[in-house]
């Protein structure tokens, strides 16, 4: 499902102009990471995708729907949004019911709900915890419950707001796996993140926001090459990217494989 943002402005009632003219297109099935300093407007932008916020000016289309013409509860069928803090949504007495809440709201058939819940629990490695009370789980596992509760809604677009913040390495790997599987299923995944390694390793496209505007938007390698521009919104490229640049590698790299390939070639050609 294609997302089209056209000249979007948003001013909060308190008078803060959080978005100042954003235009972008996200194609169906794209994996996009959104970076930028605190207050750049990332959360404000994605809250427009499921109608939690309405444009002050400009428009947002999700497929053939204009978000101004549809309620949040309708848009929930197209855009799943995982909030930053799982504690702001968990309320049931066990993990299974929590994960089933979304699809039930969307009015799916009981068989489909059961299938989606089982699948979401398996994907987030929660199957053995489905009878547990979410509040008896550690905060990292509560995060996975929040992820599962959105994945089970089977929406074409999934948004994660800072999924890796405060998570341990094992859980970050689990989240990366979720993103990979969603990509294979053809879902659009939009992730807000301050974790630049997570961003570089899992996303093909990066959008950098600064002060309510798009600073950079393009293939991950191209965006990460712009270290000076990125510094203006307090984003540091990954260590390997910076090391590659210091070594004078002819291409921008962002993970080990790319680094090693470029480095071998570099050594080979230097002789």
């Amino acid at each position, binding site marked *: 499902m294609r997302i089209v943002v056209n000249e979007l402005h948003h001013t909060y009632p308190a008078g803060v102009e959080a978005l100042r003219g954003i235009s972008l297109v996200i194609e169906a099935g794209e994996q996009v990471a959104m970076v930028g300093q605190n207050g750049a407007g990332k959360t404000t932008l994605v809250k427009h995708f499921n109608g939690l916020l309405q444009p002050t000016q400009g428009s947002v289309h999700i497929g053939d729907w204009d978000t101004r013409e549809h309620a*949040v*509860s309708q848009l929930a069928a197209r855009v799943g949004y995982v*909030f930053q803090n799982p504690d702001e*949504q968990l*309320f*049931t007495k066990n993990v299974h019911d929590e994960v089933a809440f979304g699809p039930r709201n*969307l009015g799916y058939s009981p068989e489909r709900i059961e299938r989606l819940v089982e699948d979401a629990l398996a994907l987030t490695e929660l199957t053995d915890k489905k009878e547990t009370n979410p509040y008896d789980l550690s905060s990292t596992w509560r995060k996975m419950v929040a992820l599962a509760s959105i994945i089970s809604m089977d929406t074409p677009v999934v948004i994660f707001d800072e999924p890796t913040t405060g998570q341990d390495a094992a859980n970050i790997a689990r989240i990366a796996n979720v993103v990979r599987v969603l990509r294979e299923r053809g879902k659009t995944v939009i992730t807000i993140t301050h974790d630049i390694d997570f961003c570089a390793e899992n996303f093909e496209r990066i959008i950098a926001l600064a002060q309510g505007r798009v600073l950079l938007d393009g293939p991950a390698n191209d965006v990460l090459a712009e270290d000076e521009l990125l510094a203006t919104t307090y984003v540091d490229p990954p260590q390997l990217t910076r090391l590659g640049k210091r070594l004078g590698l002819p291409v921008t790299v962002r993970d080990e494989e790319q680094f090693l390939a470029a480095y071998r070639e570099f050594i080979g050609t230097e002789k």
Partner: protein
Amino acid sequence: MKDKLTFYIERESSLHRVNPLTKLVMVFAFIILAFFGPGFWLPSLLVVLGIIPLSFLGRVQREYFRTAGRLLLPVVGFLFLMQSVFHPDVGDSRVLLQVWVLNVTVEGVRFAYLTASRIFVMVSAFILFLLTTHPSELMSDLTRRGLSGTFAYVITATLQIIPQMQAKASTIIDAQRSRGLDTDGSFRKRVGALLPLTGPLVFGSLVEVEERAIAIEARAFTSKLEKTSLREIPDTKLDKAARWFFLLLIVLAFGSKLWPS
């Protein structure tokens, strides 16, 4: 964002710079004058000549009028109506209006107006205080003067809790609507939405209490030693003089009750 959690409006003004205790004494002076002071029009005068000019001095007049209008007018209006309609008819009072079996008397209206204006003074003086005083500033000033830390904590926590709960509640509503919860449909739907909305609020608060206790104790909250403060809160001679003045007003207000002329 964090300033949204209290009523406090960060702004440069002479009222903001007044010592918090002075402002607190002033608020109590207003309230006691309104309730015990002489004269039918005194509470109204306090609003027009005291609280409203002060809101301009503090450069928070817009916020003051907005908050007072939203919070107070409905309550005070309702009170005025009920009191004037249901005031006991003592017999010798002039009847203004007859509503069904009830007589609206001049005396009833006067009594209702007085009650309503007193309440207005009380709440709106507090609004002005909250708009121009940062809770943590009040807390550190009071603890510096020897107030027990626990007591100061209870007060500031109470001042902050409602706006904090509101901010949390609106995030929860957003999170559940994003999961397809329909919050503005039929009555049945609304009742069904109650648990998903209140559940996280209650559980979340319980989790928070524990985290808070740990965070406070990590800063040696219960230590008996004298503590220093990072923030210096000004307390000028003028502040002290103003406090004595307001205390005098309070005494005079009580005095006028004890010796009616």
